């Protein structure tokens, strides 16, 4: 990234760089660094304040969930999927449930489908709010974090009443959902949606329009379309780079084909397409779209059963399947190989965050350390999903 804005003049000139050459300093960022969002360690080789090379070291949270799954029955895996992306657990469960339902040929009742979309979109808002808060903290603003958590708390409270847990829900089951949603909860979600649209505008004015924030994020950490495709980046990162791609529309699942919403694509409003500000903006606008989806679900939801016909002991017929869903952080894929038994023969999870970590060394080259922090934050990784 030679045209990187924050790269100093002398760094761009190779001849001058050779004259001024000093030894590279190795700096360890993490694993206990607040800006790395978990236990990510990035080994940075710095030339004064410029990152020459960044090597991510992952695996601190590795639990080998895929090996665990080989010894568990299909229902028992759902709590494990929760623990991958603990900030977007509903999406993880849904992807897994969809994989099995496709193999089993289970019909999911209409009401359950509505509830699934509802909770998945609420989860998306909660997850993006978490991004909003922590990203502001990364860049030195503290109060947005508190405001974001206040709204997130409302969502978590609804989830707690719905499923019984605040983060690791085990709510979306194979064939449907666990508990039914009550009218009171639906009314609360309606009220929340109205408040949320107002708050989001406020948040954007508070952080997104702030000149200091724009200065820290615009033209920083550019990821071009080609880079994203080459590295397999998905989700808000790909959309932030100006690619109109959302699995909810392009490879639709659940009820999304009947719902009306837009795909938000980064436009480079404050800087260039694919910079940190664009990724931030895509996530903020996605929350508005999520609210739009939730409102349609609240209108459409009807009475009925919440769980379809599923055998008591689930045995998946022999075969394999790859199923992708759009989670808050990108595409989540489950590759299930079954040999007809009660446990999966092999369950591979394609996590988007893992791919995104692979993107970091490429983007980091030639950045300032402070900009690198902004870039890590804008990728919004959850280490539970990276290490699995």
């Amino acid at each position, binding site marked *: 990234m030679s045209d990187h804005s924050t790269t100093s003049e002398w760094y761009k000139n190779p001849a001058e760089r050779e004259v001024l050459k000093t030894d590279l300093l190795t700096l360890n960022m993490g694993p206990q660094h607040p800006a790395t969002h978990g236990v990510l360690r990035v080994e940075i080789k710095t030339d004064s304040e410029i990152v020459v090379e960044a090597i991510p070291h992952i*695996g601190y949270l590795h639990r080998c969930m895929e*090996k665990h799954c080989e010894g568990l029955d299909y229902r028992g895996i759902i709590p494990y999927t929760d623990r991958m992306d603990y900030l977007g657990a509903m999406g993880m469960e849904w992807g897994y449930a969809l994989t099995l339902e496709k193999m089993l040929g289970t019909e999911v009742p209409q009401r359950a489908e509505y509830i699934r979309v509802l909770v998945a979109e609420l989860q998306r808002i909660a997850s993006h709010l978490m991004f909003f808060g922590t990203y502001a903290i990364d860049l030195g603003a503290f109060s947005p974090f508190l405001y974001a958590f206040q709204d997130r708390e409302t969502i978590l409270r609804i989830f707690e009443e719905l499923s019984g847990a605040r983060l690791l829900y085990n709510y979306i089951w194979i064939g449907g959902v666990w508990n039914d949603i009550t009218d009171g909860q639906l009314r609360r979600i309606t009220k929340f949606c109205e408040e949320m649209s107002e708050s989001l505008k406020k948040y954007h004015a508070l952080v997104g329009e702030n000149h200091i924030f724009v200065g820290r994020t615009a033209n920083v950490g550019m990821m071009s379309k080609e880079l994203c495709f080459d590295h397999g980046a998905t989700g808000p990162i790909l959309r932030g780079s100006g690619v109109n791609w959302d699995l909810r529309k392009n*490879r639709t699942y659940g009820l999304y084909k009947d719902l009306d919403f837009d795909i938000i694509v980064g436009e480079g409003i404050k800087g260039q397409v694919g910079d940190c500000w664009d990724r931030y903006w895509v996530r903020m606008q996605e929350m508005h779209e999520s609210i739009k989806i939730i409102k349609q679900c609240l209108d459409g939801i009807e009475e009925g059963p919440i769980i379809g016909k599923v055998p008591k002991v689930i045995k998946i*017929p022999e*075969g394999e*399947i790859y199923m992708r869903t759009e989670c808050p952080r990108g595409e989540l894929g489950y*590759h299930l190989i079954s040999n007809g038994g009660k446990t999966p023969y092999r369950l591979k999870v394609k996590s988007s965050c893992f791919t995104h970590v*692979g993107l970091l060394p490429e983007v980091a080259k030639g950045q300032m350390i402070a900009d690198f922090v902004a870039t890590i934050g804008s990728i919004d990784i959850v280490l539970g999903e990276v290490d699995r």
Partner: protein
Amino acid sequence: MHNELAQLINSNVSGSNAEHVARENGDDVLFISSEHILRVCTFLKSAQGYEFNVLQVVTGCDYTDRIEVSYILASFINNLELILKTKLLKENKDHTPELESVCSVWEAANYQERECFDMLGVCFKNHPDPRRILCPDDWEGYPLRKDYVPAEKYNGMVINPEHKINREEIFFGEKLKREAVDPKKISYSWKKPEYFPDGVPESTESE
């Protein structure tokens, strides 16, 4: 789609032996011979009408005699998905079969292949950074192989020390069985035999 694609690969990459395997449940699979993986991938990335521009996953599955490595490709241009598989023979527990790296085709392969090496012990030739990724660098064995035996010690530290395993409850059932007049009457939930490799220790009886 798979049949035409198999023909297309066969006619463009000689010797790749692309074979379409239809499955009753789930997705169809395309098998190719392992020597030509790089050429097939290079071809698929630019194949007219397919253009698999994104590599989603490189993963594998261990069967006792072979490892099947799957490359899951996606085309964001034509909205397609393909599971490309190749078989590698595995001779014994520590044998690491070799395969050509596809890092030159998609950058995403870098991390995916490292994970595949880490978990299944598939060596990728010409990989720019052939290290383990999730496990520590000095870890022994490949965890996702079916014949993997969990390590007992790592760097001199005991993994899963006894005081962390709930032995008392296991032995409670055993003790009751021994004391009972008719041991057949006793049943208990913790039945995994691997937790009693050399019988129940006597020490628990003294309580």
